[in-house]
């Protein structure tokens, strides 16, 4: 058996880690925090040149035709490197949705420029404070003209395209909308994690093109969320390990009462618990990666398990990292808050743990008898 990534995939990890360490990390995240909204654009183009955007896209559409495992490796490193670019929204959600439901003509037209980084794409589901369920989505599509207000939309102020979930045909439908066209007004909205910017996008008769069959929108979204949950879990797990590393480094270097604070059991036991949470998350991520790459029947359960574990791990590691840094951890200058912000934005972006715990238990209730 081989329950691990291949040497080629580990090579991709090494490449990604050193690229992100040199070009991304805290310095870039901080530029976005300081309001430089275009700070990630160069990085995104470079990622496209490295082939990352098209990792999971078949070669006929300009991609690399790699499987889900390569995307998992990249996602873990994006989390570790605090990558701010809209790569997550594009590669975990929007591009897989186009691949799954787009017409042949749509794939031919859009995937190559998306993979090349000439176009960027996001997904627009939420409509304000009520959680995203069919009852709470009111955006309408009449004769392919879209009207409604979506927020928060990740990277919505800068993306070229959005896959917009509309409330029609009972089950909802996705429409592809060019956000630079007439009928679309968008504005940045203040976000807890400005390195993952959010926008309010208003559609007033904007031209859209249906993606997928009418009425299958919510079903498509559920399917894409199971796929994306694995990748977000890898990103969260990577972030958890980075926060743990930062906390350990500090606990070894910082002295109080004449010795390193990491020598106190009150501190080292906390770090051990962070390691336990991050390790459980990592192992569950690996299983989910296997389920994703083989399109196994276990995917919904494996994805929810990885997602719930990784959300808890990143939340814990990011919070306790600040605690271990003490007062300095609460200052703008020290990088702890970058993980702390990212932990929360990743924790809620495709549904919070309240949603994913419910999905997990539902998957257990419906699993086949012999799987128990």
């Amino acid at each position, binding site marked *: *058996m*081989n329950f*691990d990534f291949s040497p080629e995939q580990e090579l991709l990890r090494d490449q990604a880690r050193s690229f992100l360490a040199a070009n991304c990390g805290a310095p870039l995240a901080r530029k976005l925090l300081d309001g430089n909204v275009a700070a990630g654009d160069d990085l995104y183009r470079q990622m496209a040149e490295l082939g990352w955007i098209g990792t999971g896209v078949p070669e006929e559409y300009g991609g690399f035709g790699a499987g889900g495992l390569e995307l998992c490796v990249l996602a873990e490193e994006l989390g570790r490197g605090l990558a701010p670019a809209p790569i997550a929204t594009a590669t975990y959600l929007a591009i897989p949705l186009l691949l799954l439901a787009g017409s042949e003509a749509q794939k031919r037209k859009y995937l190559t420029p998306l993979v090349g980084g000439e176009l960027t794409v996001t997904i627009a589901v939420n409509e304000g404070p009520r959680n995203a369920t069919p009852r709470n989505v009111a955006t309408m599509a009449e004769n392919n003209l879209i009207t409604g207000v979506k927020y928060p939309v990740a990277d919505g102020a800068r993306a070229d395209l959005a896959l917009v979930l509309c409330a029609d045909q009972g089950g909802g439908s996705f429409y592809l909308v060019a956000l630079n066209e007439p009928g679309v007004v968008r504005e940045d909205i203040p976000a807890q994690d400005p390195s993952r910017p959010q926008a309010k996008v208003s559609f007033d008769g904007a031209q859209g093109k249906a993606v997928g069959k009418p009425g299958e929108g919510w079903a498509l979204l559920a399917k894409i969320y199971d796929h994306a949950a694995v990748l977000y879990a890898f990103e969260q797990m990577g972030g958890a390990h980075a926060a743990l590393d930062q906390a*350990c480094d500090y606990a070894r270097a910082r002295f109080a009462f004449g010795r*390193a604070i990491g020598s106190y059991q009150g501190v080292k036991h906390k770090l051990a618990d962070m390691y336990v949470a991050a390790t*459980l998350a990592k192992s569950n991520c690996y*299983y989910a990666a296997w389920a994703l790459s083989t399109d196994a029947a276990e995917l919904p359960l494996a994805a929810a*398990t990885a997602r719930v574990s990784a959300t808890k791990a990143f939340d814990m590691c990011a919070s306790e990292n600040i605690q271990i840094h003490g007062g300095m951890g609460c200052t703008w200058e020290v990088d702890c808050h970058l993980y702390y912000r990212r932990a929360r934005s990743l924790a809620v972006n495709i549904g919070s743990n309240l949603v994913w715990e*419910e999905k997990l*238990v539902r998957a257990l209730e419906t699993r086949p008898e012999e799987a128990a």
Partner: protein
Amino acid sequence: MDFSDTTEEAAFRMEARAWLDANATPKAHPNQTWASVLEDKTRDNIVRLCKEFQSRRHADGWACLHWPKEYGGRGCTAIERVIYGQEESRYIVPRGVVEIGQGMAGPILMKYATADQKARYLPPMATGEEIWCQIFSEASAGSDLAGLRMAATKDGDADDADWILDGEKIWTSGAHYSDFGITIARSDGAVAKHKGLTFFFIDMKSPGISIAPIRQISGSSHFNSVRFDNVRVPDAQRLGAVGEGWKVALATLMNERVSVGEAPGPDFEQIFALAQTVELNDRPAIENQMVRSKLAHWYCETAGLKNTRMRSVSALSRGETPGPENSITKLVSATKAQDIARFGADLMDQCAVITDPDLVLGDGRFQQSYMQSPAMRIAGGTDEILRNIIAEHVLKLPSEPRADKGLAFSEIPTGNVAGETGP
């Protein structure tokens, strides 16, 4: 990623399965235990059945998988042991008598005993004819095992003079039915704690040894105290040099931490089934959001441990040494077992006070686990020691300053605790 065996692994698995099929009964369900199907649960019967099964294993070449063939083992690779374990876990197999000797005493003898001693003691250990126990802990030396006080005194000045052991040991599994034991004692109280220890193996029938069972809070008696009154041990039964006993002991302790593994008792599947059975506020408990959230949490931990084990097995399969990830297993599973036992009782509500397996849901196993799980958080490394190990060995954090550092053992403060009598 794939979960399939290599050709060699698959062949080994089929061979193991064939032998188990011919020699053991498959479990009716994954959580069925040997104890639950055993009619005569007396100690004598358990020992007899374990010895019998070991003898059959040995006759067919399935004894002591990790031992070299010359001592009666099979010389398996690490991954083959894992595969055998996976296969055996699907069968009802007598266990609990031969493992400590074969897992801990055997490897120590292989490393430190003379050729004659190996030839005398290892083969009957492999066949199960002779049972060995491990006699290390003391009432005042638990996590701080090197603080042990049993005295080893030379009877005379000759280089090969006998040793006289005096003191009291505790937490010895199987002392009553063991033929031999490995132990460690203080041969010099005037030097630092770790430096004054010497390691021996002893004949459990030696005059001066008295064994008393310890009754645990669960009501059962898995452990004993072993008292040594002027027990004479030939110098030939010393393993390792005088004063080097700690080094010898460390190797066995690492084996123990690996072997304790996951806590027994109701696990995720049992608490999930219970939640589907009982009611809460006039509704099925499984519909309650708090219940569902707890189930999700325990499933994540259970799956996380299983998948962590798979990662280690995968490393073994490639012929590599597994990473430190398995160090979390007992830490996570012992607390989980206790939490699940407690929550199981909450779900049963007022009836949870009953322990009669015929009157309470879950065959009384939740109640049993509630009383057994506290010991799981202590045996083979307490939660606190395991966190220290993770923090210091995996995360490379500095160790805590030690008040006994640099002191002769006799100068170390002891406080007012049981067993406090100077060496």
